[in-house]
């Protein structure tokens, strides 16, 4: 209890540096559910996701991240650290703490009036049924990288199907899927995945062409090294909006398993 109170006290003072962009209530949920460590005026959180951990920090001085070493030393999976920025500034030296730069993602957005609508929608794109979610997850797990991609759980996929947000293309079996998450402002084009045998066959384009028309604004993210995804996004009017996500990874050597709460 005392650690939680201390964490709330530190959050309240708004430490200068953080990679955890949450409202107060979301912060309370985080420290309720996830592993966290409070030391001096720092909060370090390990958020469990995709069978790895994401390292979140609140600190007034980046040198203080060295104090997270004892917190991290017994973790036996890789740990990802995400650093969001809109500015061309010097990225903090996370390498000092064992985190190496892994990937850089850029956010793209387009307003409805600027979207380039494709001449024809594809009739191959269909809403996923509940029976499809196991194949979708299997494909996601085989293609996506847990250190930087969103890999939905079965429970999440059930909800996406109920909300009519998950779309598939089938040829005997599922060859691709896409996730358009409804947001108050429009849509978050969260995932677009095609099995290797069907890549470069315009399957990804068919999903993009079938984006719902009724959103005010559309958002997606793409790996700066994924030129196909970038070309696809730009083909329907998406442009970078300046926000970048630098993903650092700490490869953990084998150690004792941490005791989960």
């Amino acid at each position: 209890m005392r650690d939680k109170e201390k964490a709330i006290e530190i959050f309240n003072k708004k430490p200068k540096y953080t990679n955890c962009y949450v409202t107060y209530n979301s912060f309370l949920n985080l420290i309720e559910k996830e592993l966290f460590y409070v030391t001096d005026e720092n909060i370090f959180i390990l958020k469990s996701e995709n069978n790895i951990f994401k390292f979140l920090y609140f600190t007034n001085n980046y040198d203080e991240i060295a104090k997270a070493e004892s917190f991290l030393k017994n973790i036996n999976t890789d740990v990802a650290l995400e650093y969001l920025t809109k500015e061309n500034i010097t990225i903090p030296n996370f390498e000092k703490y064992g985190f190496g730069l892994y990937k850089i993602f850029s956010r793209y957005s387009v307003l409805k009036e600027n979207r380039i609508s494709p001449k024809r929608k594809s009739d191959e794109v269909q809403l996923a049924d509940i029976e499809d979610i196991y194949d979708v997850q299997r494909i996601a797990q085989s293609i996506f990288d847990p250190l930087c991609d969103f890999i939905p759980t079965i429970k999440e996929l059930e909800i996406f199907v109920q909300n009519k947000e998950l779309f598939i293309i089938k040829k005997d079996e599922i060859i691709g899927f896409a996730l358009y998450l409804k947001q108050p402002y429009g849509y978050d084009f969260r995932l677009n995945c095609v099995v290797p045998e069907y890549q470069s066959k315009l399957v990804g384009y068919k999903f993009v062409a079938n984006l719902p028309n009724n959103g005010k604004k559309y958002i997606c993210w793409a790996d700066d090294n994924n030129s196909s995804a970038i070309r696809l996004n730009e083909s329907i009017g998406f442009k970078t909006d300046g926000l970048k996500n630098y993903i650092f990874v700490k490869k953990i050597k084998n150690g004792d398993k941490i005791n989960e709460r």
Partner: protein
Amino acid sequence: MKDKIKEVLENIRPEFDFADSDNFLEDGLLDSFDLITLVSSLDQTFVISIEGTEMTPKNFQNIDTIEKLVQKYVKD
């Protein structure tokens, strides 16, 4: 004060017209990353220190709610 707040918002997202919206988060004018930047900018502009517990969506819905929040600290 409203003009200053509008200026802060426009510095963060110059592509949007904040006068047109009653709910910045719902309308997609601001996201959670922008919210953190906004709080920091408001602190600097008005020489205040907004508490973390005040970082709730309802306090940042529109210029009126932001003004009400800032006034609380300026008065104090």
